[in-house]
């Protein structure tokens, strides 16, 4: 199964509700019956890393800047450095995840 490693930043002063974004993302993927396993277990090998940063400073990006392999990063009101509305973030993530899944299966 396609595995997504989920990482949260420390959440000191977030611009977005990080847990709601992830909840809506999980529900959205479930509705599409997409077979993905989202895990916060840092010891597991994953196909994709999803960084949930509460603001544009994006502390997590520093931690994972050396990582090989695909990453999607939410940076407060940005996803992969594109400005977004908070409510649109789950859908944007679903689209990106589906793209990555299809390119990895080719």
């Amino acid at each position: 199964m396609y595995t997504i490693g989920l990482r949260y930043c420390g959440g000191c002063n977030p611009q977005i509700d990080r847990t709601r974004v992830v909840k809506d993302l999980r529900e959205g993927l479930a509705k599409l019956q997409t077979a993905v396993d989202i895990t916060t277990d840092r010891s597991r090998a994953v196909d994709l890393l999803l960084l949930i940063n509460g603001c544009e400073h994006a502390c997590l990006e520093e931690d994972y800047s050396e990582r090989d392999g695909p990453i999607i990063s939410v940076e407060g009101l940005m996803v992969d450095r594109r400005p977004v509305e908070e409510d649109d973030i789950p859908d944007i993530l679903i689209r990106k995840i589906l793209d990555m899944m299809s390119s990895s299966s080719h």
Partner: protein
Amino acid sequence: MMNGKEYIESLRGLNREVYFLGRKIKNVVDEPMFQPHIHTAAMTYELAHEPEYQEIMTAVSHVTGERINRFTHIHHSIDDLVKKVRMMRLLGQKTGTCFQRCVGLDGLNAVYVTSYDIDQKYGTDYHERFRDYLLQVQENDWMPSGAMTDARGDRSRRPSMQQHPDAYLHIKERLDDGIIVSGMKAHITGAVNSHEILVMPTRTMSEEDADFALSFALPADTEGVSYIFSRQTNDTRRLDGVLDGGNPKYGIVGGEAVIVFKDVFVPWERVFMAGEYDFTTELVETFAGYHRSNYGGCKVGLADVVIGGSNWIAEAHGVERSSHIVDKLTDMIAMAETCWSCTLACSYEGHKTPSGAYNIHPLLANVTKLNITRMVYEWMRLAQDIAGGKIITLPSEKDLENPEIRETLFECFAGKQGFSPLDIIRMLRLIENMSVGAGLPEAMHGAGSPAAQKIMIARRSGIEKKMELAKTVAGINRDDYFERIIGKDETTHWNEVKKKLRGRETEIY
């Protein structure tokens, strides 16, 4: 990279039209009224050559991989943002005044970020053009002035509604090979001693103001461009001698000028925005953010000088141990370091933009500058308090040189033994220069008046999120984490608590 001397010599090659005190100034470089400003800008070049400052004063270009002066660098990391404000403090300490070159630096970064975003939306090639321009700036080590503020006439009316069409710089004509522009930019720092002018719009523009949504760069001596140099407090003292100027080497504020553009041709390769009014907010706010963050560096460098000067004068007058003097100096230091903390914070909390360049934290940058608009006045007030009324009643240098009264005056201004009266006068003049004159309104209005910072702070405060926090703590919103701690829902929990309290109420009352 040029050194200080080479920078000054490089200005001789520019033949620009400059007016000051009713005269046309033919030789800008040797004009005594301009020289202090030129020396200050030269410091930004000189220190880049000194091994003890290179770590801060230089950077590696992301375009060429070559070492360049940091004033031409596009910030590509948090470390770059932090070093930028360290550079500002350092130069404030070395000159005690505005060293001018940061406006162009902020303009370069803001246009870099915004031109990328315009291209993403419209498929234009502004960013590519700007990178070519940036390469020239870096290779030639140019100092561009940053020309954002338009004359603006009636502030309540939009640019296109002004009585005088030139109140805002605008496109008059679009040609195959470029544009023709007219208008005026006011208060432009370092304008008469810059190699280039980098133009940006001054405010958010709407569709009807599309011709005012304009960014470009030109050589400073382009035909049709002229400059009217501004006055500063006590400026003609520079013509009276050395001492009375207060800071004769480096002057006061940055040496501002009105820049007039009369039917000036700008080739397309030097145009970075021409009508994309929907990106004016981004360009203005990005520039303002970078620029406001600087003030927590440069003005704190100036504070270091004025605090040192105040302490020295207190010693010379024999009051340095007095508790109220120690208290005032401590207040000055605490305020300066508060501003420094703000600017470090807005740099460390910076972020990467889609262009790859790094931007500061906008909310914190605006807080930095808002503090500066208040605290500079306060620490300068304390400097005046400590230095005494002599800062505005000292006799002139010419009287100090007059053998008939010289010794009497030295007796009058003598302090504690071991301090030369002439040095005391020198220091008092410096404190006068820094605390009485143009440096104060510069702290108020430079990089935008306080109201502009408040607007940005209000807009970026995340007030909705703060209300949610309050509602959760107050018990209006559900508090998931609290429920996890107590292991049940809140209503059940409080019902149980109330039940337990029932017996104890009678015990207390």
